[in-house]
């Protein structure tokens, strides 16, 4: 039996009929069509499905869609503002922090959470903050560099 939930994603309010066992990543990708959120493992190991739920980064494959009822979500599509790309997105481009790009959306959101919490994180705090997001291409250093360049 599907149940109707209300959820705000990237400042847009949606009503979605979801199955009890449906994951949030599944709803975001296939019901809302926001395919920027990736699914790399389905069990919370890789972080590619990271979204920000009420201000906290979560693996959306480990959250049931129903748990998002009445809550607010930011996905990668909601990171840029009316004035264009978020400084983090610009930094990722400029520092060469993007290769295959599959981890990039989740990585940007985890990095954003780090900066939202603390605008001047140390390198160790940045590494800790993105340690749940696996990247096999870059070796992380350019990503860390990009986040550092945005931090104050």
């Amino acid at each position, binding site marked *: 039996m599907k149940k109707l939930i209300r959820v705000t994603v990237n400042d847009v309010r949606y009503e979605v009929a979801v199955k009890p066992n449906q994951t949030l990543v599944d709803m975001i990708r296939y019901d809302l069509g926001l395919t920027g959120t990736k699914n790399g493992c389905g069990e*919370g190991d890789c972080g590619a499905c990271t979204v920000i739920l009420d201000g906290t980064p979560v693996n959306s494959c480990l959250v049931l869609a129903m748990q998002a009822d009445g809550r607010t979500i930011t996905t990668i599509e909601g990171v840029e503002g009316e004035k264009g790309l978020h400084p983090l997105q610009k930094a990722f481009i400029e520092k060469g922090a*993007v*290769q295959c790009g*599959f981890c990039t959306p989740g990585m940007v959101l985890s990095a954003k959470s780090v900066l939202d919490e603390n605008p001047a994180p140390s390198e160790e705090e940045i590494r800790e903050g993105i340690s749940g997001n*696996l990247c096999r291409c*870059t070796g992380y250093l350019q990503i860390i560099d990009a986040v550092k360049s945005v931090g104050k």
Partner: protein
Amino acid sequence: MSDYDIINTRAVRVDASDKVRGLALYVDDMKMPGMLYGALLQSPLAHAEIVGIDTSAALRLPGVKAVVTSKDAGLVKFGVSPARYDETVFCHDRVRHVGDNIAAVAAIDLDTAMEAVSLIKVEYRELPAVFTVEEAMAEGAPVLHEAYPRNVTAQVHDEFGDVEAAFAQCDLIKTGSLVNKRQDAAFIEPQGCIASFDFSGNLILYSSTQVPHYLQRIVAMVLGLPVGKVRVIKPYVGGGFGPKAATNHMELAACLLSMKSGKPVKMNFDRRQVFMHGRSRHQFFHTMTTGVKKDGTIMALKHECYLNGGAYSSFGIATVYYAGSLLGGPYKLPAMKYDGYRVFTNLPACGAQRGHGGVIARACWEQQLDMIADELGMDPIELRLKNMMTAGDMTCNYLDMSSLGMKECVEAVRDRSGWESKKGKLPPGKGIGMSCGFFVSGAGYPIYRSDTYHGTVIIKLTEDGGTALVYTASAEIGQGSDTAFAMIAAEAIGIPMECVRLESGDTDFGMDLGAYSSRQTLMTGLATKEAGEDIKRQVLEVLSEELHVPVEDMDIKKGLVVFKKETPDISGLRTRYIKEHRGWTDNPSLEEPLSFKEASRMAFLARGSIVGTGKYKPPVLGGGHKGAAVGTSPAYGCSAQVVELSVDEGTGKINIEKMTDAHDCGLAINRTSVESQMIGSLSMGLGEALYEEVKFDDKGRVLNDDLAEYKIPRALDMPDVDPVIIESNEPNGPFGAKEVGEGAIMPAIPAILNAVYDAIGVRVFELPLKPERVYMAIKEYKLKKEKER
């Protein structure tokens, strides 16, 4: 820094902004009207006869649209090398590993497809299975494929020079070994595909492949379709590293399901299936004997290797050759003997992974060279520099060093790491180690025997003039090839990057063998350069006719026409251009120099669509011996690395503190991308050295089939890296460029092994260097020392 306008810079990637915005489409992001979802039935047993398959209950399930087995797929064999085609889409008589494919279902949604799969009844008669090389080669062991007794799927026996005669002249002969564990490429995007077969008989397959061309050929061959009816499109791909360089069963199953149902069918591997499909790095057992003179001159190498290959050949025949041939360089080695054996076991098949075949061989030998240096009382760097090849040298197995910045790499890492102030001077528990590496810039021959071009590129100018559309079937899988080719096209034509738009990864765009063997920068790069030069020539020919200036007296640079001698009167030409653009606000004033945009518009008016073409195939390479093709390349990249680390003697835990890495890529088309490949390679090497290992239970099931238990480096695990680009100007590459994507992994593992020895005084001959293994090695070493006292 250089005379180039576009290449050799840090231009931003053409795909970066779509990727940071979440707009880049990967195959699972795509959807088609009426699309069905497919699922595979895979064997739970490692080795069994199939007695019967009953699909009737699955077919009765509401929502199921098609079920396919070997009866639908037929028994055409495929694989990677035509000499070893040994797989069918579905097993019909026997399963050979856990995860072997039996049937597939397409249904209205994934849940229904998976439920249907669970309703297919398969009756098995279990057979004894073999999981290790020893078990598989034992007398009377079950044979996986009848054509290969003792389960030896491929063997190599090569000797170059006279090894025994060379050993007779040696002052020191050293024998040692190294064994690794099976690894996983652990790309973050699991394999996926969508097949769409239409009523005109055309099949489009969207897939997360590294090799659209090979996939197109195998699909056509296995399904009995004309190649021209099969189009493979590679959307963005979330990493490959080798295992996505071969056709997988799911791709073929999706095609069959679409042909049977008449609907598009999407299929994905889950992470567990990625491990069950495998095709990543083999387990290698290397034994090497090296002979040197007392001044450190390397004289000979005798090398034996066994590979645990899993249940099918896949890339394995090439792997077993590469494991031997890539030791021909970068040191002067007059004599080399190699005996290699790849062995079938009832595990998922292994294949190609970054540094194909050469990574563990390199690690084994570079550790042995360090031991030899130690015994001779030489600095390991001195030993290496003494034996180093230089440009123009030929290895004993006929690999031609057309460029080789090896010495420059070694000197760079020595100086930048402060080697001389650290080697032998660090406190106990801290170590420094180094290694060299060496790899091909593209395989010299295609996987199937053919005189085919390895890459063709088409560039078409838009009819309005001003934009160059580049079409290549090459595969951007994250490494940055699209950006490199856009840069090469812009440089060759003489226009800014913004004037180039590039489309890739579609077999309709031409011929390209794809992303493997670090081939694209050199091979597709040369084809792109030729196509760009063809465009420039055509545009200048028209200008020459219009302005009566010889072609050789003109050029295009930074989007403007350059007149090398006198500037002709361009007013007539400009007036025509402006007249065509009445009302436009960006028309050039009379004083401005003639632009490429105007010139290319004139070219269209004179000749119709301006299309430039380029193509590349390597010259005949290598020696005449059996297997000579594997290891040949038009150019070789090389690298050197210094690793600094500490070892906690109480726990055996290794902490890598600094990696200094130099790579000779000939010329860096994009400096940022080259460094990215270097750092990414190091990170993979670090993971493989320290913790990566696919584990199986005694039934052949993967125990750690997820990214929690199969551990790859996290952001917290990466040390400080100092990447140094060395540019030796490769004569056979585009603008002097050659590989970086795979070669950069070569020195990582041995440099770590050598640094561990420097830290704790004990050599470890088994990977990965898990804390317990290192701890036990330290303990044994201490016991031995005590006994000696």
